[in-house]
């Protein structure tokens, strides 16, 4: 029983993430913390570019183009910064599903919003060079999709 308890406490201690206290003891620690901060700065700049693109672009698909940049690359950079800064494997085991879920779901929402933007007509028609979906507009709504 005591062994079980000890094992459980060890597991909980691991799952909380026993990160080493990084007070920049060695030059490697300081270098890694600086690299993590630079990665966070790049992620923040990606968020800023997405916001500026949201403000300056004209219609929904172009805004979507700007908006999906920090959703994948910015989050990957931030997660990389967390892994570099905390330096423990349980944290990495938490971060990998976060990035994978975001990689799987960001195109989903972007696809849904883009399709609705096309069907609603909230995009500028004259800015399209090729419109391969033009004939699917004439199909009745119950035909699928």
């Amino acid at each position, binding site marked *: 029983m005591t062994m079980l308890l000890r094992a459980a406490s060890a597991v909980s201690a691991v799952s*909380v*993430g026993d*990160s080493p*206290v*990084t007070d920049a003891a060695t030059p490697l620690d300081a270098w890694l913390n*600086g690299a*993590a*901060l*630079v990665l*966070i*700065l790049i*992620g*923040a*700049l990606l*968020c*800023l570019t*997405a*916001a*500026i693109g*949201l*403000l300056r672009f004209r219609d*929904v698909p172009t*805004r*979507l183009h700007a*908006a999906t940049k*920090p*959703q994948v690359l*910015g*989050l990957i950079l*931030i*997660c990389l*910064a*967390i892994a570099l*800064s*905390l330096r423990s494997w349980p*944290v990495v085991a*938490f*971060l990998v*599903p*976060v990035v994978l*879920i*975001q990689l799987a*779901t*960001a195109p*989903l*929402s972007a696809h*849904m*919003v883009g*399709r*609705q*933007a096309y*069907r*609603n007509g*909230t995009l500028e028609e004259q800015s399209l060079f090729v419109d391969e979906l033009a004939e699917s507009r004439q199909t009745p*709504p119950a035909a699928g999709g």
Partner: protein
Amino acid sequence: MSALLLVIYVVFGVAALLTLWRIVVGPSILDRAVASDVLLTEVLCVLGAEMVINQHTRTLPVLLIIAAVGVFGTISIARFVARRDNVDR
């Protein structure tokens, strides 16, 4: 080092304010959906940055849950707009 932290704070804050402005003025509901998705991603990034800066791991489950659940808002908004559009026709 603190100057870098200040730059990070300012960049995150300006990005959040610009995204919020797009949510307020956005002409269509899809613009607001896209902007709120960006704001949610930025919340993710801010939580991660705060974890790095303060050296703790308490908000890792929040990160996981937001990444898993955040899609449903945008998808449901897109479906709702579709139904409205069919009724209008």
